[in-house]
């Protein structure tokens, strides 16, 4: 079944206060070892994935573009050697506007990274500052222009809404700026406060306000409206794309297709088993350098877990669930109150329903 490969690069220029990913600033000295380890891990894993067709590769982080273009290319070449990566596979790399310039963007494209996912987050200086992003709005515009100039024809912009200091009006400006740059794909995420982050701790201490969920709901509505008007199709709760530019790799997660994760803390999934690598980069390096699979843990999905995930993910990608999975009287109140709609023989969340997806999932799968 068409699989995906995810490669995790845990290095960042700085750590942002809201981020709880497995990412580190100040570990740059590990980069050469890390690249070697990625290659070694891919070799270790390859046998088990023999014959599995790989339709997408995704380099995420962290900030993958903190690695040299040559290293990135080496990784991709190695993957193509060891795995059955199809020829038209979607190959994405996440890019931080501050870590790319025209030569690097050209090199990436030439190496085969034909899809670029750019962490713009906002076009409002105050919001970027509140998110502790080091780049300014101009950096995004410049990086976008450079990408186009280099010939990148599949670019996604990531946006975050609902940070402290952001109003509906400033969010509208950000959306309009993003649309003006004409990316093929837009991801727009409501700022989520993770307790373990500096932001989470500040909010718990009352030093900063928590995001206002009602304002975030309005912001979501505005995103649906403006992106829709600009011709972007809403295909997952937080993702929009021009027709044909939906992210194949991410759809793999949501369609519960198999994926192999390489790198520190990366998760893999196949045949209702999910496993993950050790998180700290140093631990990861030691394991791989000792010739061991750097596995940190695993879980086997019980049928009930698998069902809950299936329902939850199908509702997220607006494919919806077959009506026959749910008792009519369970779905009825949500159909009546306009959180669900019927599309052919499926129950699909409406725009309001998407915002209350947890409630829907618990009611329909609980």
């Amino acid at each position, binding site marked *: 079944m068409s699989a995906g490969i995810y490669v995790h690069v845990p290095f960042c220029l700085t750590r942002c206060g809201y981020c709880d990913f497995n990412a580190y600033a100040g570990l740059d000295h590990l980069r050469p070892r890390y690249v070697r380890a990625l290659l070694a891990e891919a070799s270790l894993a390859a046998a088990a994935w023999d014959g599995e067709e790989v339709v997408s590769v995704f380099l995420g982080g962290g900030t993958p573009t903190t690695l040299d273009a040559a290293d990135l290319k080496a990784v991709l070449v190695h993957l193509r050697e060891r795995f059955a990566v199809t020829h038209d596979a979607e190959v994405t790399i996440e890019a931080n506007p501050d870590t790319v310039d025209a030569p690097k963007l050209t090199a990436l494209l030439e190496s085969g990274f034909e899809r670029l996912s750019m962490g713009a987050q906002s076009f409002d200086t105050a919001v970027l500052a509140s998110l502790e992003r080091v780049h300014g709005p101009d950096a995004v515009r410049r990086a976008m222009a450079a990408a186009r100039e280099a010939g990148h024809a599949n670019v996604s912009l990531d946006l975050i809404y609902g940070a402290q200091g952001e109003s509906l009006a400033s969010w509208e400006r950000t959306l309009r700026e993003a649309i003006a740059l004409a990316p093929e794909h837009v991801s727009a995420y409501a700022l989520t406060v993770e307790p373990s982050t500096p932001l989470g701790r500040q909010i718990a201490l009352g030093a900063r306000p928590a995001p206002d*969920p009602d304002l975030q709901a309005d912001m979501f509505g505005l995103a649906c409206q403006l992106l829709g008007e600009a011709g972007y199709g809403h295909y997952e709760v937080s993702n929009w794309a021009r027709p044909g530019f939906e992210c194949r790799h991410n759809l793999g997660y949501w369609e519960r297709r198999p994926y192999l994760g390489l790198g520190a803390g990366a998760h893999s999934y196949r045949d209702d088993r*999910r496993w993950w690598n050790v998180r700290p980069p140093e631990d990861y390096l030691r394991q791989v350098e000792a010739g061991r699979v750097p596995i940190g843990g695993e879980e086997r999905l019980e049928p009930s877990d698998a069902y809950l995930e299936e329902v939850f993910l199908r509702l997220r990608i607006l494919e919806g669930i077959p009506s026959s999975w749910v008792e009519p009287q369970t779905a009825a109140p949500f159909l009546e109150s306009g959180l669900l709609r019927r599309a052919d023989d499926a129950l699909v969340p409406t725009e309001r329903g998407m915002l209350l997806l*947890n409630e829907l999932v618990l009611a329909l799968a609980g």
Partner: protein
Amino acid sequence: MTETSRIRNFCIIAHIDHGKSTLADRLLELTHAVADRDMREQYLDKMDLERERGITIKAQAVRLTHQAGGQTYELNLIDTPGHVDFTYEVSRSLAACEGAVLLVDAAQGIEAQTLANFHLARDAGLVILPVLNKIDLPAADVEGTAAELAELVGCERDDVLAVSGKTGEGVTALLETVIAKVPPPEGSRSDPLRALIFDSSFDTYRGVIAYVRVKDGVLRTRAKLHAAAARMDWEAEEAGVFAPEAVPVAELGPGEVGYLVTGLKDVHQVKVGDTITSQGRDRAHEPLPGYREPKPMVWSGLFPAEGGDYGALRDALDRLKLNDAALVFEPETSGALGFGFRCGFLGLLHMDIVKERLEREFGLELIATAPNVEFHVVRGDETIVVHNPSEMPHAGTYDRVEEPMVLATIITPSDFLGAVLELCQGRRGEMVDMKYLSTTRVEVHYHLPLAEIIFDFFDQLKSKTRGYASLDYESWGYEASELVRVDVLLHGEPVDAFSSVVHRDKAASYGRAMVERLRELIPRQLFDVAIQASIGSRIVARETVKAKRKDVLAKCYGGDITRKRKLLEQQKKGKARLRRVGRVDVPQEAFIAALRVDQGERR
């Protein structure tokens, strides 16, 4: 058996924290009742709960022996509960004594509880020995407090003893004074047996233990006995005394105090205040005076927090009732809280103790409705007794409602008099009288509805007087009052657990406060939830919990899926703890918080 001339039965009356238990410890030591190595603080307060709260729930009787003037005396120290909830129990303990030590902290002076129990003791005809305690404290005002005490008791200043329970100073003199001034008991061996049950407890192995004071005749182990009020015949399996551990004796003669192992399994068959006599022709014709049935004053619904524990709660209440004759309960079904029990308590302290024991000893998690008093609804010749606000009929369907009143005694430093009067006026109080105990301390009497006292009255009193005022009260019958039932509706559905009966003048503000409180406690749902307070069909307050609009995880990729699924599972578990009221999901915590009456330490 000891000659009555060498028996002295006495108790110690003291306000909480005035040092009664410490003085009792010194008496035990001085009379060698407890070996040094077995001595521990607050020896007589056996239960854990008592030790922690520093109060005495169950009366205890200890036999001490003391030599004086070449004679050996038997001194029975009868410990009495000090709290207003247990006035009847106090009165029965007093009835077992001939004398009372009125113990007052020399640094604190007379408090309301001291006063209340002093009056009870005096009314019971006891000889009162005024004693100052804690004279070792730097803050002790020995002269001032002695004068207050002499004035209260109506004795000379020189008659006031001074002791320190902590150092033992003056305790020997106190024992000698007890022997000299407390009269020996009267009563004849040849009269038919009459013994007063002044307390009881339950022992898992031996059944109900009765604490008794023999008034007339002789109580022998194995005697065939009859309890007058309970109309029960049983046999004394064992008679004994507490010295202070239980020691069996062949008989208890007139004037003696001890225990009886009854072999009975139900404490209700051994009623506090009942008279024990012999069976058959030796039976006494007249029981001892003063018996009455325990009367609950405060009611509250107790519900298991987790739905399935109803059976466990019933079993636990049944078990507690075995040694708590004052606890009454009946099944109650609440639309909001499910199956539970409406329980009657002697007062707030009693209620707290029962709740705490249910939670601690039986591991139950409970939701308790706000406490309420018993209302009498009068319709023509008929009087309906209402224990549950949600069962209160609506205005217009009856002639009047009566509520229980109390006569409250408050002693306060005069600096805070204004604040105290304001508090009492605000609680629908009517002043009865007021008198200065000294230039700086005032005693005030108020008629107050009991319902006003069982909310945060005591806390308010303490906070308005920086902890200096003390309160005691006694029942003062029922009076007609303008009471109305305030209901709380969630999304149009009345929630029985939130109904309350309040005075008409306060109903609207009560309703508003409740509605505002709930607005903070009820989580947003998928639809707007109206929270309303109503009096009959009239809505007096309204708030809305706006519909929840956003509850979705923003991101969900690769590895996150496991985590997100676990978050959903957690959310699902949280939902299982919600109680559904109509269409509205209300978390357990909201019920607990909304129904909580912030009383702090109630004593």
